[in-house]
């Protein structure tokens, strides 16, 4: 197997891996890896996206799925919700209690995640239970590498503050 095939196979096995981690785990020099990734992108076998100062690399077949995932993890509360749902399926009340946020705030974020197709809801009696629709491993890998900028963190807190102030009035 050539070096390039080995890189491609590793990316296919670990969609959303970051450039640095890929270099570390495969033990390839930065310059060498950069060259092979450039060639793989040129051959339309992979694509990469920069977010929160990190470059995430995905196999080409992941193209339709990556965008909602990266949008979802760009918000702090949504990242926390996804990590909670990676532990087990939960309802909104449990999530609100665990994150110490109002149900209205959680409701807003659940709607966003649901519209993005990252989570799904099912009815169990009078309860609505949420679960992840994405591969848990990919979600955890991408979130664990994500380093938000200071203004991103502050913006996320401002959003949650506005949602809390507005209580249950948010519909979007």
């Amino acid at each position: 197997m050539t070096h390039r095939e080995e890189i491609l196979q590793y990316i296919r096995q670990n969609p959303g891996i970051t450039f640095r981690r890929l270099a570390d785990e495969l033990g390839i020099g930065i310059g060498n890896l950069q060259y092979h990734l450039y060639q793989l992108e040129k051959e339309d076998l992979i694509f990469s996206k920069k977010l929160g100062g990190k470059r995430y690399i995905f196999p080409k077949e992941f193209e339709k799925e990556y965008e909602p995932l990266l949008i979802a993890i760009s918000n702090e509360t949504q990242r926390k919700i996804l990590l909670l749902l990676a532990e087990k399926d939960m309802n909104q009340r449990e999530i609100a209690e665990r994150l110490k946020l109002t149900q209205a705030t959680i409701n807003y974020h659940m709607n966003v995640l649901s519209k993005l197709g990252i989570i799904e809801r099912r009815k169990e009696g009078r309860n609505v239970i949420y679960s992840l629709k994405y591969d848990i491993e990919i979600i955890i890998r991408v979130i664990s590498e994500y380093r938000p900028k200071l203004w991103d963190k502050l913006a996320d807190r401002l959003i949650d503050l506005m949602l809390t102030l507005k209580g249950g009035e948010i519909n979007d």
Partner: protein
Amino acid sequence: MIDMILDVTIIGFALFLSFISWVAYKKSGMKSILFLLLAFLLFGIKKALENLHILTKVNEGTLEITATLLELIILLLFFIAVVKKD
């Protein structure tokens, strides 16, 4: 001199808060955050106007009325930001 430093700090902080609001608006699409952004921005502008006399000769009476009017608009914008349904 100290009041000048404080005013510059306030203008800088108002611009920083406007930027944070802009990022929050881009992320959430919540219109109420746009009102917050405008309020922070106007606050910075008001502070700059109050110091305009350093750079150019201006009518103090007009400046005072403008600054007070801006204060009213800022308060209204904060109010709308909180009560507006998104």
